[in-house]
């Protein structure tokens, strides 16, 4: 009925080097900085937008506001001293760093973590994944002005953090998975209390279904917006839920089972549209998978057993020369640690492969041109990026 198609003939033409010819002094374009201090940005990063009217013609991601030089600091620490700082690489889901680092060290040092530790690690990772998805579901509502989902989801996340606290003694940085195993056993009555949390979570998620996913305004805002062409998945290194939303059932938990995922029973959720709505629904389904997995793990895991394998004296721990790459499916995609040792007591090089690295940089810059300013925040949240793992 009313069609508001933007007039694209006014757009800047790409020059010979493929870059857009934008002359700010013509007054036709406006530079907008979103971030780092901006409520619509996921964490501490910024997007430099060039807008023409309400349409964005160019977007550049700027990161580095959280750079601490982790990969350098790790080279200066012994293998056990690295362990407390790895979790700081990614704040909202720190456990994956601990697991990847521990598994990489175990791989190179030839240590096998005991079975109980394997189950425990899977439990911790699923709990962390649940927390991360809670942040996402709150964030995507918040980015579109539906603050209530953020309130509910953060509350549920707090409940899960209580269970983390009970298990590990810390709310955010758990430092529970260390090379050789895990730090402890399940406390008495943990299963019952976890079941209460999961029940509450399911109740709140049903509310989210009603308020967010069946809300017509939410659908209007998200359907058909920010579509990633599935042909771009490989060139841009898209993994995890972002790829699953485009119909590609990529999930390392199924494709390349690690820990005890081959003994667990779960389905990989996919969607077809590859837009913001599809990415949100895939994550909503994944939360359910996570809840089911936590229940299964608590039922199937051995009740007792050693939590730690025997590791050498950490003060004299030298690992022979070698290199390895350990990967896993975190809530955002493929998370991996590339560890190189040179036979001394210090790692030669550790490289963290965070999924946000490709999602927030090359992919986001590719997706932003042509969107509305209003959609930039939702688009960024829907890619589920955490800046600390980009710059480390």
């Amino acid at each position, binding site marked *: 009925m009313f069609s*508001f198609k933007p007039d694209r003939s006014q757009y800047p033409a790409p020059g010979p080097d493929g870059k857009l010819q934008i002359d700010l002094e013509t007054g036709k374009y406006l530079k907008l900085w979103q971030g780092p201090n901006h409520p619509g940005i996921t964490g501490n990063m910024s997007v430099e937008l060039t807008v023409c009217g309400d349409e964005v013609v160019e977007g550049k991601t700027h990161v580095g506001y959280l750079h601490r030089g982790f990969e350098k600091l790790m080279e200066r620490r012994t293998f056990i001293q690295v362990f407390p700082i790895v979790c700081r690489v990614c704040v909202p889901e720190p456990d994956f760093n601990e697991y990847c680092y521990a598994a990489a060290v175990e791989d190179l040092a030839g240590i096998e973590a005991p079975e109980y530790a394997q189950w425990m690690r899977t439990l911790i990772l699923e709990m962390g994944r649940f927390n991360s998805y809670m942040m996402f579901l709150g964030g995507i509502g918040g*980015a*579109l002005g*539906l603050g*209530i989902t953020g309130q509910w989801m953060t509350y549920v996340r707090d409940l899960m953090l209580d269970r983390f606290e009970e298990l590990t003694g810390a709310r955010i940085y758990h430092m529970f998975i260390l090379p050789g195993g895990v730090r402890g056993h399940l406390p008495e009555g943990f299963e019952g209390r976890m079941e209460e949390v999961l029940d509450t979570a399911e109740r709140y998620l049903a509310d989210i279904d009603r308020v967010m996913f069946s809300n017509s305004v939410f659908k209007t805002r998200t359907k058909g917006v920010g579509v990633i062409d599935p042909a771009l998945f490989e060139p841009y290194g898209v993994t995890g839920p972002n790829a699953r939303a485009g119909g590609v059932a990529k999930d390392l938990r199924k494709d390349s089972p690690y820990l005890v995922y081959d003994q667990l029973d779960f389905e990989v959720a996919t969607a077809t549209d590859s837009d913001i709505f599809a990415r949100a629904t895939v994550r909503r389904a994944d939360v359910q998978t996570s809840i089911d997995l936590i229940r299964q793990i608590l039922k199937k895991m051995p009740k007792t057993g050693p939590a730690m394998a025997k590791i050498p004296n950490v003060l004299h721990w030298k690992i022979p020369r070698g290199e390895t790459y350990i990967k896993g499916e975190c809530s955002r995609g493929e998370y991996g640690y590339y560890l190189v040792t040179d036979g001394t007591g210090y790692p030669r090089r550790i490289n963290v492969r965070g999924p946000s690295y490709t999602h927030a940089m090359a992919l986001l810059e590719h997706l932003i041109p042509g969107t509305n300013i209003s959609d930039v925040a939702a688009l960024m949240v829907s890619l589920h990026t955490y800046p600390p793992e980009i710059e480390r």
Partner: protein
Amino acid sequence: MTFEWIQVPYALATLFIILNYGLLMTAVVRKLAARVGGRPGIPVWQNYIDLVKNFALRSKINHGVMYYLGPVFRLSGGIGLILFVPTIYGSSWAQNFSFAGDLVLALYFIFFGTLGMALGAGESGHPHSAIGVSRGLAQVTTAELPMALAVYSLAIQYQTLSITEIVAAQQGGLFNWTLFTNPLAVVAAMFAFVGTMMRSPFDVVLAPQEIPIGPPTEYHSAYLALMQTNRAIFPIAKTIIYMNLFFGGAANWAEFAIKVFLLYMIPAVIGVVHPRFRVEQSIRFFLKWGLPVGILAILTV
């Protein structure tokens, strides 16, 4: 219309009551949103403290004359609206300065604040302000369209442009309200009401996630305090107009408080559970739903 000096303190008293009522209502609405989220929320007197705090800030930065006048225009829009609208029907002192054609003036004042804000925010020079203002003007223009049509419809129905006379015509029972005598006009006007109360799904003007709170981005200290005062007065004043035109007005302060509260809660409740529209989506929404209903209301009178 005769003018008597006693009207001045009377009008100021009305203004004072409405200011306090508005400050409390704003807090109540925020408490409502907090309760839906499961929080206790701010104390109800928080707005007063915020006002005092903002007036008490020591430093202020001025970006120019219009920057200074922006909040002043905005506030005069709110106060002007109150002064020319009869608040309590039949009361000798809460009539304010209402006169035969006050409906037209009221419609003008509804728009006046937005225009003043546009000038002020433009002078502040912040790109987010400029974007917010252009969004705001575009959306308010289309959102007020159904309201204007509904007012025409009422003018035809009651053969007057005086709010007092429209209220008088609605007295004598529930079914004399415009709500029942001209329901289409009420529906059209309610579109405008929800659309201009700055709550979701039509709060793209402020949209913190896109353009950090839009037009007032650069406003601070006493300037912001002026705008906060207006944020308390203006929605109540607007609600009074709607109450007078469509819901039978109020014969005493208790009836006023209840009716305004209920009307005020409509956009608040809708806002809690909805995300926001993009600006062109909300424009489309008003043109698609509000405009035809408004035209129908005129045709069926």
